[in-house]
């Protein structure tokens, strides 16, 4: 027997006596910890390899997870299950994929929903870009590109839009087609230099609007109320739908038509057509209301069928925001595939760790046999080797934290900015990284430890 092992043996004898006689659990654990560190230092190469593998595997998974978490986060978690997107089939069978109705509404249907007002709150939503003359004209005469939406008055309370000054406009303003506008904080800064500018007049693409509200920073991603995608730029303004339609403000809007072609110069024809171009959202605050609204949509479509406008049975949908985002495949499939590949990497790293731990533990069959022969139970062998695995896991986790931080910070190199900015490092992510590393390593150590604990005491001694 080698001298080192004899020394080890002496220690073990001492330990077994001590542990059984005087010291409590803590002492045993401290001793296992010491043993683990000593064992790991005996084979620095193998140890470094395992720690690196765990670190890389965990970091790759957690980096991709942080992107995935950012991208698939609920944009309005406190209310998303009460917000619904109604879809009414204005095209008939054979036009949508899998019999799905179009995702937007025709002007006729949107206005009918608004007029009949069966939801708690509701709004049509039309996306638009507008050129605006900057406060100090730039030299080459270029305009500021501003992005906004035409919405109804209930849009603001429905989505809990936070206001800095003033508020949304009233239902009266909708009805009277008032020229009012709600602007964002940063647009207020850009155009008017900031401050409370409620009541002032602002010109947006040749129409003058009275500012009724200035919203605080509000940039939910993805833009779940209309575009259903991630936008790189913040919103600038909101106008009333009724004013916008009556004054041709949205006459260049994007529309989709049954036969695939829209005549984009003829706004009057678009209003009469079966082309869809208005997003719609309703708030329904209890299951009974949801049920009632479904029935209402079907009744509406039946009525249209009786009137001869639809030649098909009602084919409506009423999905809540999470279901609608899922239906729209808002989370890019690249993100999911990348997460999957990163998790595959973690599995390979774990397999690698299982193999190396197995080699490392079984190499110490002699030591195990001696300890067993001197009366150590299988449980204490388990405890000793799982402690060793735990040390590797913790070290791998610390390395993983570093790699994850580097990964999340450099995710912008491999992903578009609108997605990369959603990946964040927070305490939950860091804690999860550490936990994953330790848990994964302990899991990887289960089989090698099981094998170590089964080393028969006497046989090993004989063989030596």
């Amino acid at each position, binding site marked *: 027997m080698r001298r080192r092992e004899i020394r080890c043996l002496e220690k073990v004898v001492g330990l077994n006596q001590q542990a059984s006689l005087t010291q409590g659990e803590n002492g045993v654990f401290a001793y296992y910890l010491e043993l683990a560190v000593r064992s790991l230092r005996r084979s620095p190469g*193998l140890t470094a*390899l395992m720690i690196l593998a765990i670190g890389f595997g965990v970091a790759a998974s957690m980096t991709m997870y942080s992107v995935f978490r950012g991208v698939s986060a609920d944009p309005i978690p406190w209310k998303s299950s009460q917000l619904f997107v109604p879809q009414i089939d204005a095209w008939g069978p054979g036009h949508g994929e899998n019999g799905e109705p179009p995702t937007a509404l025709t002007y006729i249907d949107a206005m009918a929903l608004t007029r009949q007002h069966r939801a708690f709150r509701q709004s049509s939503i039309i996306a638009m870009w507008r050129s605006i003359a900057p406060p100090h004209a730039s030299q080459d005469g270029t305009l500021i590109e501003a992005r906004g939406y035409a919405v109804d008055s209930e849009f603001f309370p429905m989505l809990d839009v936070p206001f800095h000054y003033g508020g949304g406009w009233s239902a009266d303003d909708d009805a009277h087609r008032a020229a009012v506008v709600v602007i964002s904080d940063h647009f207020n800064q850009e155009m008017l230099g900031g401050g409370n500018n409620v009541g002032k007049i602002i010109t947006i693409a040749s129409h003058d609007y009275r500012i009724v509200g200035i919203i605080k920073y509000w940039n939910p991603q993805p833009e779940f109320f209309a575009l259903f995608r991630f936008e790189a730029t913040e919103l600038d303004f909101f106008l009333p739908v009724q004013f916008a339609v009556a004054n041709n403000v949205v006459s260049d809007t994007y529309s989709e038509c049954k036969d695939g*072609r829209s005549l984009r*110069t003829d706004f009057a024809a678009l209003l009469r057509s079966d082309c869809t171009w208005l997003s719609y959202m309703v708030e329904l605050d209890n299951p009974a209301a949801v049920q009632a609204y479904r029935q209402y949509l079907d009744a509406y479509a039946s009525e249209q069928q009786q009137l001869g406008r639809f030649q098909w049975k009602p084919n409506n949908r009423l999905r809540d925001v999470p279901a609608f985002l899922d239906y729209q495949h808002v989370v890019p499939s690249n993100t999911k*595939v990348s997460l999957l*590949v990163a998790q595959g990497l973690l599995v*390979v*790293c774990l*397999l690698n760790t299982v193999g190396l731990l197995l080699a490392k533990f079984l190499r110490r069959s002699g030591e195990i046999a001696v300890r067993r022969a001197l009366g150590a139970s299988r449980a204490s062998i388990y405890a000793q080797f799982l402690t060793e695995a735990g040390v590797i896991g913790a070290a791998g986790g610390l390395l993983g934290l570093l790699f994850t931080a580097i990964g999340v910070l450099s995710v912008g190199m491999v992903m578009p900015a609108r997605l990369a900015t959603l990946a964040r490092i927070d305490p939950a992510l860091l804690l999860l990284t550490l936990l994953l590393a330790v848990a994964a390593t302990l899991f990887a150590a289960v089989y090698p430890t099981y094998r170590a604990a089964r080393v028969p005491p006497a046989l090993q001694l004989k063989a030596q």
Partner: protein
Amino acid sequence: MNVYPILVALRRHKASVLLIVLQIALTLAIVANALFIIGHSIERMRRTSGLDEDGLIFIFQKLPLVSGDDATVIEKIDAMQRADLQAIRNLSNVQDAAATSGFPLLQGDEDGEISLDADRKGKFVHAAYYYGDEHLRETFGARLIAGRDFFASEIGHGHGLPGSPVIIVSKSLADQLCPGGNALGQTVYQDGKPATIVGIVERLKTPSFDDSNWADNSVIEPLRKDVFWTGYVVRARSGRTDQAIRDIRKALFAVNPMRHMPPGAGIHSFSEQRAGMYDEERGVALLMAVICVILLSVTAAGVVGLTSFWVGQRHRQIGVRRALGARKVDILRYFQIEILLIAGGGAVIGALCAVGLNAWLMKHYEMMHLPLFYVAIGVLAMLVLGQVAVLVPARRASNVPPVVATRSV
């Protein structure tokens, strides 16, 4: 060397062997699919648009809203487009300019079916439409291989609807429609309206960035499409692209300052815009490459670790073999063949896993069919990786002196 004793020896390490085989299999499955994603991106970045891309500038903008009935709006928009094009063509750094409803690989959303008979009973082919004026083909730099360009008198304007009496088509479309090669002069039908093919260009990609089986089927219609969102394509004089872009911006805003170029639109060189389109794919490819490198390193390190352990464990056996007359090279071979068997086993399972993973990805995500070429690369990579990883431990084993056999533990 006889393989049998190696197999027998491996049976004594079932768990370790199984682990390393699994690790190699999984690595192969992921690496083959990742390499495919990388290869596919590179292939897409190399696609030819059919244009002479150098010096090509494209402009996409929204004209100021105008009011009036449909016919009035169209005339007003057309007048604005003609004024813009005139202003651009007058610039000294510009060679030519044309109106276009789309840009190959970048922008445009008009497509439909071209058929050989009016009621589309017989053969029809899917194609994308470019609406443009008589300058378009020349400005694009698409090579005319048969027939002629449009005459100025043939250019209409108005709603972007197919149905012009004369059209120019891409060779791909001509070949699919008339495999006999008699497309030139042929009457074809677009939405039931007859058109004569007067010219054929060698190649012209559709505006779609995505792959499809009609990605080269394009039709040029002699029509200025009058909508608020308009496109122009400009050919700068050689080496003057940047100056031309600056001049064009100044000239257009001088004609009408109320035009509108939000992000995604504007005035850009074609090559810059095209490169930008691939940012996302390039990012994914880079990510896959990083993951591949980590995977291969981890697996190689795993092989090194495990074989080193085996070498240590068999120290005495090796000594005995050496004492019985085995040469150094025999010991080396032993470990090399051993890892070849293990890596080979892993590669076989891995190849099946790679195909399975691809099938699963195709079912759940937008993924193409994995060509066997990439599986073969993966298999080869695993075999090479095994040999490289085993080299150092195997060398160490072959250096074990025969005298070890005579020593006790």
